[in-house]
């Protein structure tokens, strides 16, 4: 089963594919999705010289993406299991990999941003929004839950990360002021 056929089946019959496809098949497709999606992000960032060139640079970005998505999938699965919904954490992780394919949009958008027709940050957030929407759709089908609950569970890890980051930032500034004064 090729990546294209898996995506095609998923687009045509998402509920059926999520239910009947084995972890192995989804795993291959999901990891390819991570690889291609993060490669697109890498190329987008390279267009603006935001990351250094080379395989190590891409590998570190890929590892970061895999790590973050693994944690997010685990957190979402834990939250949903605790609230009574049943699903498959590994499938969720692999399906998240397929949603990463939306990062491919970043390359044509990146060209437009290079030509000053679009803002690169806006491009990134546009893709981010599309990925979140796709993830909500996947979580809803995989765990047989309502759209709102899926949205809540998908947004929860991002909210946690952002709030943690801002807390750290505030503490860092307070510490810096205390250190100097």
């Amino acid at each position, binding site marked *: 089963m090729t990546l294209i056929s898996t995506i095609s089946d998923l687009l045509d019959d998402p509920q059926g594919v999520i239910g009947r496809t084995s972890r192995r098949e989804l795993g291959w497709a999901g990891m390819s999705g991570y690889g291609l999606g993060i490669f697109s992000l890498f190329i987008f960032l390279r267009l603006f010289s935001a990351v250094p060139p080379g395989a190590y640079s891409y590998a570190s970005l890929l590892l970061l993406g895999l790590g973050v998505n693994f944690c997010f999938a685990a957190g979402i699965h834990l939250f949903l299991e605790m609230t009574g919904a049943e699903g498959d954490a590994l499938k969720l992780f692999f399906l998240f990999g397929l949603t990463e394919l939306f990062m*491919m949009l970043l390359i044509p958008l990146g060209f437009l941003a290079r030509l000053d027709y679009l803002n690169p940050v806006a491009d990134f957030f546009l893709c981010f929004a599309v990925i979140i929407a796709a993830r909500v759709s996947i979580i809803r089908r995989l765990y047989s839950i309502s759209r709102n609950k899926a949205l809540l569970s998908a947004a929860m890890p991002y909210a946690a990360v952002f709030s943690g980051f801002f807390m750290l930032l505030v503490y860092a500034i307070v510490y810096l002021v205390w250190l100097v004064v």
Partner: protein
Amino acid sequence: MEEQNVPAAAPDPAPVPAQAAAQPAQVKPSRTRLWLKAIAALYAVSLAFSFTVISKVDSAMKSRSREMDLSKLTGLGAGKKDAVAVIPVFGAIYQTDSSKIWERGSQQIARRIKSAAAKKEVKAILLDINSPGGSVGAVQEIYSAILRAKAGTGKPFVARFGDVSASGGYYVASACDKIVAEPGTITGSIGVIFSASSFAGLMNKVGMRNEVIKSGKFKDIGSPMRDMTPEERKLLQTLIDDSYEQFVAAVSEGRRIPAAEVKTLADGRIYTGRQALKNRLVDKLGDLQDALDLAGELSHIGKDPRIYRDADPIDQFFSILDSRLSFFSGASLEKAINSSPRLEYRWYGI
């Protein structure tokens, strides 16, 4: 009629739904796959284009990085190319609490002079002065830091005057090898001032009295609670005269003008840059770029040298906070400190 014909037209209903179900199942995926293949092809093309763009961006970045002056951005001076350090001396010069690094006092300026002079890549130091002067001690601290740096490293110092560089601002500049001023710069005001307010009349009027117990008759000299006595005035005049002699000696030594001649210029008057040039108080008329070129020539690194700015990011951060938000009430603190009487090399025209 039609309702009756429908069952009749379908004698064998079983295969029809099967065919109807099979047809979309075969067509739909192939269409989707076709679209996906088209998208994949477009993606491959855009990837090829993106590699071209990236290679061009990289080559442009490489060629720019050779010329780019990183010290302008970070102040850390990533390159080791020879440079001229630019140290701003802006505003009134006073000593401030040295523990607060965001307050730009004389200690900080002296520290920056020492630090810049010690840098290998710094071949000359340009003091960008825009100051009406300040307290005697603070001005002399910067002056001695310049002399020490010159004696220790032999690097040339150039002073550049902006709007105003009078009194203490000129005192500092006199330690430099060359002085560049704008034609309309206000400079001069060579002299010393001591001012003390007296609230004695006001206190008498409101019936308030200040009791002072002192070890000597001059212990509360300059007190605003009473009028100054002739003896105190005489004593203060000797202080003023001595500080004035120090100023004249510094100008005479720095500008290589006889002290007697300096005294004729040093009656406290101010000069424009052009008048100062005529009186040999400055060496050249020009702007910051002219001063930089002169510093480059003196240090044998040529005109239009690279600029080294010793900007501490933490210092900048707190300076911005202080200036934009008055976060640490730096201005009010400075006003409170400056309200007490003191000897000053300062011009009060601004």
